[in-house]
């Protein structure tokens, strides 16, 4: 299982890549494997506000639909429209397939997330 060392993780299996006040968010390799073939990704609109822990997107496989939770709070400033036409990218390249970019309202929340090492441990225990 691929867990890049430079990212932060949530216990709901989202990853966060922070650059300044901006955080791109996606789902982990572990999550995409568990879901199987992803057939659709439902994304929020640019301008929506999300709070940490709130569901902001949905990933669908043939037999399941799962909420994706925001690891950090803020305003959505970009959504990855490529995923509408090619949801399979989430399977083939989970860490390249960001869902949204959030302008964080409280970058301090990053400190509450898991490191790659902790996330690896978390997955093993789960």
């Amino acid at each position, binding site marked *: 299982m691929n867990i890049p060392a430079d990212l932060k993780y949530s216990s709901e299996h989202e990853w966060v890549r922070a650059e300044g006040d901006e955080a791109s968010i996606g789902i982990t390799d572990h999550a995409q494997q568990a879901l199987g073939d992803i057939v*659709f990704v*439902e994304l929020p609109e640019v301008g929506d506000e999300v709070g940490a822990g709130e569901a902001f997107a949905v990933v*669908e496989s*043939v*037999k399941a*639909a799962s909420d994706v939770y925001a690891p950090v709070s803020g305003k959505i400033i970009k959504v990855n429209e490529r995923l509408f036409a090619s949801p399979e990218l989430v399977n083939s390249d989970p860490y390249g397939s960001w869902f949204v970019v959030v302008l964080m309202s409280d970058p301090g929340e990053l400190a509450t997330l898991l490191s790659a090492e902790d996330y690896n441990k978390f997955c093993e225990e789960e």
Partner: protein
Amino acid sequence: MYPYLPITSEDRRRMLQAVGVEAIEELFVDIPSVMRCKGRLNLPGPLSEMEMARHMKALAGKNKNLDDNPCFLGAGAYDHYVPSIINHILLRQEFYTAYTPYQPEVSQGTLQAFFEYQTMICELTGMEVSNASVYDGASALAEAVAMACQATRRGEVLLSRAVHPEARQVVKTYSHFSSVNVKELGYQNGLTGAGEAEELINNQTSAIVVQNPNFFGALEELAKFAELAHRHKALLIVSADPIALGLLKPPGESGADIVVGEGQPLGNPLSFGGPYFGFMATTEKLMRRLPGRIVGQTADSEGNRGFILTLQAREQHIRREKATSNICSNQALCALAAAVYLTVLGKKGLRQVAELCLQKAHYTYRSLLETGKFASTFTAPFFKEFAVTGQEDAAVVNARLMENKIIGGYPLARDYPELKNALLIAVTENRTRDEIDRLVKYSVAT
């Protein structure tokens, strides 16, 4: 004794033994005895097939039916001709005794028929995507309103009073419980008030809802409402008559975002109000918000084309409380009837039926006005149904018609108290000139 129960007493004895109990009661020990039915339930029967059929025929005989009484009543349910072939196809047990096509390998018949149906509905409505039908036209409209509110994330809807009164009631029932605010738009000269819509629309409006032809039979200017709705980032929902779509511009071309309608006119009998089906179509953009069953094309591992229920992640069995709707069935056999109907009518037949309706309705309208006893209630253009205002109470006119074995029109005052003495008259291709002339004759007091 019972023709549908093959298990004999001897079978029962052997089976109880195999299960390891002495008596059938032991299989019901988990039902507390205080909850067991005591004594004989107060129900009719059992009757033999002959007795039952005799009883039911007697009941059916107490109704005045349309074969003996030519019908000019429409108001949302229409006496269009149902070609003979339809019933023969519907009575194929492989169609009518099957369940929802959960096992596609043994349900390709139903699935392909739905795929063909969906294509036909897209062709009629000018929309990109259709589901495989819902309960009826009225609940389709309620589902469309819910869909528009979800898609726009707004909680208000502008509903024309020229939409079928029962459909409006269903929309209001659904909306009350899901906290959607319904504002009604009045009508002028039989058409939805565009000025009023302009005044009422705001940034909370999810959709404008109109019917075309509307309940009065009149033709709305759809493009105007589409423009208004879209200017405020709202949707346009159109409830359409599928027969009229043989002649009229598809609502999709006028900018509709969701098109629904009562499908009964497409090959389904009147049957005292049901079963009917609602059709429901939308744009590709809103595809994943469309409720109900949807069939898609795919292939098996050898590349054979096949059909399957798809986009199921929208649905209740997966999404549970987050589903687009709770609906988990369609009106499969009614939709199949529509597919057979549209197949045998084909490209030209549907247009011909629409033209017959149009010409006969206008002949009836002119003839009634020529009596001097009826005036136009409205002057807007109409398709197969129109309103006229008489000098007598509508019930009096209808009673006289019934005495002469004619089922008259719909008394509009029932839902619109301001339209006193007005009758809504529907004329389908099923009415002959002779029947129309009799209608006109007996509509007037002698």
